[in-house]
C-alpha cells in the first residue's frame, strides 16, 4: 500500500490556478491553516473556494487568491464578522455564490454520491433564489407534489482538511466533539489532502479512540501531511483550543503588516513568530 505522506509544499504544488477547492472545518474551527499558509506561499490563484468560511477564506481573500466563493457565511466565531472577507465583499473584489448552510451540505452530499443534485427544503421564498439565478427547483413525482430546490452537486477539484491523527495511508481520525464535514469534502473531491497533528501507525488509531472516530478512509485521500499546530489559530479539540489572542491580532492588524510578520517565511518561521508574540 502506498505511503501518501508529503509536505505541505508538495501538496500545494499539485494544485493549479483556476481550480475549485473545498476547505474543511467550520468557521474558526479545525481549519487546515498550515495548508492554507502553504497555498499563500505558492503562486496558485483564481480559485473557486467552497467553505463553511472562517479565516481560511479571510486570508485567501486578503491575498487576492479567490475569484469566486461558495459559502453560507464567513465568521471567526468569537469575532462574528471576518474583517478581511468583509473588506473584500465591500470593495467588490470577489464573486460570491451565497447559499444556505443546509443547501451547502446537500451539495457536498450530491457530489459525494455522484448525483447531479439533491432536493432540499431550503432556499425557496428567500433571496437565495434571486442571487443564484442558476438554481432550479424540482417537484416531487409522488402524491405530495411538494416543490424543492434542486441543489446542484458541489463537485471539487481538490479538498484540504485538517484532523487530529492520520496514518501514512490516508486514514484520518478526529478526536474532538464534532467531525464537521471533512469526510464529505474529501469524498466530493477528485483529490484530497489531509493534514494532521500527528502521523501514527495504523494500529495506534484505535488503541485509545473508538473506530467511529475514523472519519476519513484512505480511498478518498491523495496526500497526508504531518502538520503539528496545523489548524492554528483555529481550534483543534482536544489537542488545542482557538488562539484567541492571535486571532484578535489577525483581525485587527492591517493585512500587509500581518502577512509580512507571519507569512513571509515557511511554517517554522510562522510558528516561531507566533510564539515570540504570544
Amino acid at each position: 500500500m502506498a505511503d501518501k505522506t508529503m509536505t505541505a509544499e508538495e501538496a500545494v504544488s499539485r494544485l493549479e490556478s483556476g481550480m475549485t477547492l473545498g476547505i474543511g472545518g467550520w468557521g474558526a474551527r479545525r481549519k487546515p491553516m498550515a495548508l492554507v499558509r502553504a497555498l499563500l506561499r505558492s503562486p496558485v490563484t483564481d480559485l473557486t473556494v467552497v467553505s463553511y468560511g472562517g479565516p481560511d477564506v479571510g486570508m485567501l481573500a486578503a491575498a487576492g487568491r479567490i475569484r469566486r466563493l461558495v459559502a453560507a457565511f464567513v465568521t471567526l466565531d468569537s469575532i462574528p464578522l471576518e474583517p478581511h472577507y468583509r473588506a473584500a465583499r465591500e470593495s467588490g473584489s470577489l464573486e460570491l455564490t451565497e447559499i444556505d448552510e443546509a443547501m451547502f451540505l446537500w451539495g457536498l452530499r450530491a457530489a459525494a454520491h455522484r448525483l447531479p443534485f439533491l432536493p432540499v427544503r431550503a432556499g425557496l421564498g428567500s433571496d437565495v433564489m434571486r442571487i443564484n439565478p442558476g438554481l432550479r427547483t424540482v417537484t416531487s413525482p409522488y402524491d405530495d407534489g411538494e416543490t424543492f430546490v434542486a441543489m446542484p452537486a458541489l463537485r471539487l477539484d481538490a479538498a484540504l482538511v485538517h484532523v487530529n491523527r492520520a496514518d501514512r495511508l490516508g486514514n484520518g481520525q478526529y478526536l474532538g466533539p464534532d467531525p464537521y464535514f471533512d469526510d464529505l469534502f474529501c469524498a466530493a473531491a477528485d483529490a484530497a489532502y489531509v493534514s494532521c497533528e500527528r502521523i501514527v501507525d495504523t494500529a495506534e488509531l484505535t488503541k485509545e479512540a473508538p473506530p467511529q472516530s475514523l472519519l476519513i478512509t484512505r480511498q478518498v485521500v491523495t496526500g497526508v501531511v504531518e502538520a503539528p499546530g496545523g489548524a492554528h489559530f483555529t481550534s483543534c479539540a482536544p489537542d488545542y483550543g482557538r488562539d484567541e489572542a492571535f486571532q484578535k491580532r489577525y483581525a485587527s492588524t492591517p493585512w500587509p503588516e500581518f502577512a509580512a510578520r507571519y507569512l513571509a517565511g515557511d511554517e517554522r518561521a510562522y510558528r516561531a513568530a507566533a510564539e515570540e508574540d504570544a
Partner: protein
Amino acid sequence: MSTPAEHDATTRAEYCVIACAETWRDAGEILASPMGLIPSVGARLARLTFSPDLLLTDGEALIVRPDGTVEGWLPYRAHLELVTGGRRHVMMGASQIDRFGNQNISCVGDWARPIRQLLGVRGAPVNTLNNPTSYWIPRHSRRVFVEKVDLVCGVGYDRAAGARHHRLARVVTDLGVLDFATPDHAMRLVSVHPGVSVEQVREATGFELVVPDRVPYTREPTAAELRLIREVIDPDGIRAREVAG
C-alpha cells in the same frame, strides 16, 4: 425564603428573558436553539420551569442537562438534519425584519456590492422553511424594523407561499413582544414591557404595526423565576450588557 436580590425591581433585561422563555412554553420535547445571550437565559429558564422536556445544547456538539450532564451528541451535520426533521424551535437575531417577518442577517445595501457585509444567510432559509422560528432584537429601532429588508434570508409570511412547515412564532425586543397572528400575518404588537409605551414601539418601527385597542404589559416574573435568573442561570448579570436598564 427570600434573598435581598429578589426585592430589587425587575429589570428590562429580565422582562426580555421572561418573554423569550415564553416562546418555548408548551413546545414539548424539542430542541430549543437560542442565539444570543438573553434568548439563551430564557431557554434555560423555560427548561428549568414550565418546559422541562426541552433539549438544549452546550452551543457546540453536545446536548446537556441543566446540571451539565451530557445526554446526547449533536454535531453540526446532525443539527442540520434535526432542523429538517422539524423538532426544533430556533430564536435567531435579525439585522433587519419587515412587517411579514422577512429577516436579513446577510448584508446591508445591494447584495452585489454591499455597503456593509454581515454574517451571510447562514441557516436562516432552512430554519424558516422547516421549524418554528422566532426572533430576538435587543435594540428595537427603525434601522431594524424596516419596510423592506435588503436581502431575504429568513422567509416571511408573504413569501412562504403555504410552505407546509413554515411558522414564525414571536419577535421579542427590548421594548415588547410581537407576533403575526393577524388575518394576513402582518406583524402585531402583543405586549409592551413595563415602562414602555405603545407610542414608543410605534415610533421605533419603520412600518405600520397592527396594534390592538388594549395592549397588555409583558407578564411579571414569579419570585422563583427571578431567583433562577439572578442566582442560578446568570449570576454575573451579563444580561444587562445586552439590554440596559
